[in-house]
């Protein structure tokens, strides 16, 4: 089970809180998912950034750990300011760091991300960086003080699932001891099962659940898929091969080869 900055978490599902039909549906989805960590966005969900409104109360009432994020921030300065506001508002030094490079593709600006991660880590934050699957960027983030990495598997909200599975497997192999969370791009439970089979520690979901026809049923499907994928990873699945292998030993027959 994942260990984020020394905190053991028993659920491999992290859930975002935006875009649900109502707070009631959000609360039901959280309950169904068993998620222990919820991400909340300061910029996207509240206009003045610092207002602690009823929505935050509702989230606090769910009794889960809050992972505030810097969604919508396009510069290092903006992300750092937002992180500090979040620390004050939620009383946590956890921060999901997003520095967006392009407002349309929502691709992370990995240069700004590394810089912001360094500034925040030095300031005592525990940074969860939303990054690409680039291994070198991952190394720079670790050097900057991150102890968790959160690569995307496809663009935010695209629901495409792992578009580059080999890169994700290489990422896992390269960072065997770093908690890895797939953040962004998952659309279906099978996608989540797939990345958990690769050995990722957790997945972060929002749109795929919130905008499903029935978010509560969808999050249930996801949590089962995540459990299945994780179990499969631990059970060491077979590697694919090019040739058929008979499942029944063929004894006593001559084999010419």
């Amino acid at each position, binding site marked *: 089970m994942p260990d984020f900055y020394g905190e053991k978490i028993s659920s491999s599902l992290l859930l975002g809180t935006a875009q649900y*039909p*109502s*707070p*009631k*549906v959000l*609360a039901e989805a959280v309950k169904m998912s068993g998620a222990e960590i919820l991400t909340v966005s300061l910029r996207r*969900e*509240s*206009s*003045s950034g610092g*207002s602690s*409104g*009823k*929505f935050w109360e*509702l989230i606090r009432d769910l009794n889960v750990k809050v992972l505030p994020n810097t969604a*919508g921030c396009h510069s290092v300065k903006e992300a750092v300011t937002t992180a500090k506001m979040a620390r004050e508002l939620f009383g946590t030094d956890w921060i999901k760091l997003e520095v967006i490079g392009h407002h349309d593709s929502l691709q992370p600006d990995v240069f700004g991300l590394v810089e912001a991660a360094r500034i925040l880590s030095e300031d005592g934050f525990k940074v969860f960086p939303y990054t690409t699957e680039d291994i070198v960027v991952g190394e720079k983030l670790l050097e900057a003080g991150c102890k968790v990495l959160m690569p995307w598997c496809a663009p935010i*909200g695209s629901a495409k699932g792992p578009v580059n599975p080999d890169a994700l497997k290489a990422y896992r192999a390269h960072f065997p001891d770093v908690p890895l969370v797939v953040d962004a791009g998952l659309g279906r439970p099978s996608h989540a099962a797939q990345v958990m089979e690769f050995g990722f520690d957790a997945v972060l979901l929002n*749109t795929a659940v919130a*905008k499903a*026809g029935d978010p509560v049923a969808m999050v249930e499907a996801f949590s089962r898929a995540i459990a299945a994928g994780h179990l499969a990873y631990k059970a060491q699945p077979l590697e694919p091969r090019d040739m058929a292998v008979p499942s029944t030993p063929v004894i006593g027959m001559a084999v010419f080869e």
Partner: protein
Amino acid sequence: MRVLIRGAGVAGMSLGYELTRRGAEVTIADISNGLSGNASWLAGGMLAPWCERENAEEKVLTLGRKSIDWWTELAPGLVTHHGTVVVAPPRDLSELSRFAGRTSGYEWLDGEELASLEPDLEGRFSKALFFRQEAHLDPRHALTRLKEKLEMLGVQFVFSSNTATVDADIEADCTGMASNNAELRGVRGEMMILQTSEVALSRPVRMLHPRIPVYIVPRENNHFMVGATMIESDDDGPISVRSTMELLNAAYSLHPAFAEAKIVETGTGVRAAYFDNLPRVTVAGRKISMNGFYRHGFLLSPHFASEAADRIFEALQEKDFETHN
């Protein structure tokens, strides 16, 4: 029976109408100095329960569809029965299929069929959804007409006051966020009104986008209402730069001629909503509350006003019964 209603938005006035129809003597008090002080004044005025079903519970459709007849009967000429068109930019076409999957009561249009409904959109979209049964109204006309009608029926209006002391049998709170009900939360909505003679639309057009779905509703004098953001906040301060850009982008991608339109108004209102985003009528002794209309004031007020009026009369009858025994 005398009833004091606080709040002259669409909820308060609909309730006033339903109560007056049942023979009550009604006074409506509002803290602002006129109708324009309410969130209802900034509404889109779409009577679009089939479209709303995309993200709302079935109840919004079943109860909301009745509002089309209610408003039509209230004032001739107020409601335009031209349906709703839903489109998506080419790269977000999957949003259109998703929308169709969540809703009913539509037909698919190709580019030519869309152009025959909305000639100015010719060549701009290859596919669209058409919700034929939907309608729209101008909320400012609707509120003004409703007030005139209520005055004709003898309803008293008291503006710029929340301390109206009327000797009432029942007090009804329809003040939305001002009601200080701890269960209500604010959902900020920002809108703007554009003016251009270079584009004409006959019906509301919804422009789907994964992050911010926007609607553009035509009004008289070449005005177009563009709205509305949905932000979990009770901040009613001026519209933000981000929201302005997103609303304008949507208008511009619907038709580039909007680039030359004038921005004649921007506005921010705070919708009051319960946990499930559905309105509630609650009765506690002589006090009744009808709030939490979220983004469905014009759509759901007729039904809930009627329900609240029935419950007020029932409550009074029970009380009479008790005193007579």
